[in-house]
């Protein structure tokens, strides 16, 4: 979350990896609903595993909510548990 606040001056630190920011914090998505398949499917890659935080950059609070939502969605067959 703090990373959202920090604004790097343009041109500086360009050799470093881009700082990842939490999509939900940036876009002010307050509630992660299990019915929103389009949103959730962005966080379940091919194998249908939940994308880890270190890759997606989601903050811990939102990752937790995302986890719950994905698991609910799986339960009602909106998302797969595993593919092949």
């Amino acid at each position: 979350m703090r990373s959202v606040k920090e604004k790097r001056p343009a041109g500086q630190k360009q050799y470093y990896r881009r700082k990842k920011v939490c999509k939900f914090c940036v876009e002010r998505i307050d509630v992660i609903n299990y019915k929103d398949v389009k949103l959730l499917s962005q966080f379940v890659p091919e194998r249908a595993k939940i994308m880890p935080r270190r890759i997606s950059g989601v903050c811990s609070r939102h990752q937790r909510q995302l986890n719950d939502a994905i698991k609910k969605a799986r339960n009602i067959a909106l998302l797969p548990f595993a593919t092949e």
Partner: protein
Amino acid sequence: MRNYEIMFIVNPTIPEEEIDKINAQIEGIVTTGGGKIEKIEKMGKRRLSYEIDRHREGYYVLFVIVANGDIIKECERRLRVMDPIIKYITVRTDEEARRLEKIRNYRQKRAARRDRGATAAPAQSIEEAMQ
């Protein structure tokens, strides 16, 4: 009384009227138990993400209701015994809604404060409000 969402999947091969009949039954249980129906949404046919009892497709129906535990228990029991129901899920939503409202209120207050000319409040306090 609490807010719940019941979502269930109906066998897509049965005719539309049957689905309406199921909906009416559930509605009956809720209203006779003293609950309130806020929304019935037929979300239509969808491919299931995985096979359930040889079904690859399902007809999704969503109920948004205000009810108590007994009503939910009865609804779930009925859904379990109904043959065309493939699967169901019940989710409690009031806690989530309350949290959302709190955040909204906070944002509004903050926006109002900013309008009066104060510079942006520290971003850190949003997080506190969200908890």
